[in-house]
């Protein structure tokens, strides 16, 4: 059953990685604006005007 020590170590480490990832997201402002991207994705890129081809 000593494998438990290793498994718990792994699980805590993994959880820590996610916690740090959340911190990083928070610090870089990824959670600041949770609405605009949902609209932005619906806007199509415009097609290039035909005469430019």
């Amino acid at each position: 059953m000593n494998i438990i020590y290793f498994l718990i170590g792994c699980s805590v480490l993994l959880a820590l990685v996610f916690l740090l990832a959340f911190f990083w997201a928070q610090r870089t402002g990824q959670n600041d604006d949770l609405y605009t991207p949902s609209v932005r994705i619906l806007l199509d890129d415009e097609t290039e005007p035909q005469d430019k081809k």
Partner: protein
Amino acid sequence: MTESIFTEKTTCYHCGDECLSTSYVVEDKKFCCLGCKSVYSILSANNLCNYYNFNDHPGLTRARTDKRFDYLDEPSIVRELVDYADDKLTIVTLYIPHIHCSSCIWLLEKLNKFNPGILYSRIDFLKKQLNIKYDTKQLSLRQLVELLFDIDYEPLISLQDVIKKQNRVNAKDNLVQRIAVAGFCFGNVMLLSFPEYLGLSAFEQTFKHFFGWLNILFSLPVVFYSGSEYFVSAWQNLRNKVLNIDFPLALGIAVLFARTVIEILTQTGAGFADTLCGLVFFLLVGKFVQCKTYHHISFERDYRSFFPVAVQVVINDTEKPVPLADLKIGQRIILRHNEIIPADAILLKGEALIDFSFVTGESIPVSKTLGEIIYAGGRQTSEAIELEVVKPVSQSYLTQLWNNEAFTRQQDNRMQTFNERVSKYFAVVLLVIAFGSLVFWLPTSLNRGLAAFTAVLIVACPCALALSTPFTMAAALSIFDKNLFYLKNTAVVEQLAKIDTVVFDKTGTITTAADNQIVLTGTLSALETELVYSTCINSNHPLSRMICQYLGKVNKHELDYYKETPGGGINTLIGKYDVRIGSGKFLFGEFEETAGQTRVHMLINGRYCGYFAFRQNYREGLKQMVDGLSAYQIFLISGDSDHEKNDLLPIFKAEDRMGFNQSPQKKLDFIQLLQRLKGKVIMIGDGLNDAGALKQSNLGIAVTDNINNFSPGCDAILDGRSFNKLPAFLKFSKNTVTIIHCSFLISLTYNLIGLSYAVSGNLSPLTAAILMPLSTATIISFTTVATHFAAKRRKLL
């Protein structure tokens, strides 16, 4: 029948307003004004007409076209506005009130199509902010703002935003991180505690120590990072000799942590790490729920956000923009169409037609003669005028209100919340029981005594109590929010429940600012209607526009002669008809207007055809609303003269409940008087002239028809459309307080159950670990369900 009328109406392709004129047409697309047309031409010239494909009429009407941004060349002002600047790159965040749809996002994020100097533009839709990075060499801030203005997205640049930027804090960010840490530890500790609850066999005892040590390790950040603010707050309150809810909470956290560490180190038990982490986690979540913020609404506005940032000053015959704070007495300023008078000043040159709608609520512009003092806050609606400043900005008639003590003192007229009142006694009782059980068990055994003492502090930790208020209030807040009633914070709900006196302002509050009622006295034949319409359509005067709207779309005749006398009226010749429209004075020379109404008289070929009278429209359901407030004392105070007294009497019942001709200072004094008579006063107002009264009252509500418009500093902002729901709001706030009381009883019951275990000294970690989350879950679900039920009953949902 009606349908055909609707189809005849042409709406502006850009803004969707009705086109009163047919002269603005490009490529079959009709526009209501030159401004809208020019915005369209700019967009089409840049191949950005997709803007119109995402939404119908995404634009804002551009009736006014001239606006000056000279002050944005002033380095000292620019420095205040930008976030970052060097000689290559400038970053600036602008607040643009008009951002409202996906077209806005699409267009504003394509700004570099207009000017390659703009490197990056990003919208935050909810905050209505535009973040722009641009090349300092290719573009100046002024050019950027002018570009935005040209495409109809005028940023709101005000002195207050400049000031706000300097003391911006991100307390909420910090809270989120604390919650993240607490949640992370809570989850892990729960997992590690499970084996203990299920029972570990003898050969698994080594795991027990391992789990115990890990639990201590996880508790450390929870106590010293996430929970630290409770200790700080409890300590500060103790020093101020106040017992608030943070004290028992901090005590609970400390005792939980100490007992956990000791039990694990001495191997006498499993400790309470899971209860500890859960407690802190739930408490912080409660805190998070409580600090809901409205990004797009500001409750702290004062005159600075209403006034311009800078004003054109004449120095040695040249105009120079000067920041408002540097404006001195004796300086000569120039104001153009649609600019706001920043300080009390004497009119020196030009035709002044001042719209004081924001100061007095009166929507019809007032004309002023040379040499007259014009008070700050009015908006010039006619040509450019020159003025001499007679008082500094902060000492002007309107702004000196902010020097009143109501604005400088801390808010001590706030009523104590239920939570504050209860937690005082709670803390005392808790300590008495804890020490009582310690003393009771001491003669038997010290260990048992200590166990009972700590168990009481753990079990009675007022977690559920601390959560009942935030969750109820947050649910209430979101219900108010759905009904277009925006509260500054959750404490306002409780204040709302305690109100017994309601004071209304008149203009702009119980009347609508926009659609004034026009009443035509006398009859016009079809031809006469056309003549009047043809005359008024050529004038930009607000009254002329209202008359045109009233008459609807009729045939227009060619004018042979047109002369508009500012502040007087219009004289036109149409064929053989001589049309004169205007004030009584303009038409008849000496004339005394009766009834105190604003009237526009009409003379056609010398024959009197009657007059248009302008009356302010009361908000829908005003009478029912006032009747609904019968349990409250109701007053009306108005800055206007009393010519509407007879209209208002049936609504407000008693004459002595209505005050007219009240200056802003008098309004404030009136509130103060009511408070001295032990009234809990709610002030409902709109303009700057109510700002003092709003601040002085126990609860100030600003009524506005557009939440992006200026509203004075207050505790709550009410959208005009929900004005008649006020009685329901007040009743609902009372319900929420009852809900808080009930949830307090529920949490007390849980505490009593826990205490019965605790005083005997036999509190097992499992009991604590079940009791704490169970009580929390009960409280959260009870408050949420009960609040929604109450809202349904009040028809707010």
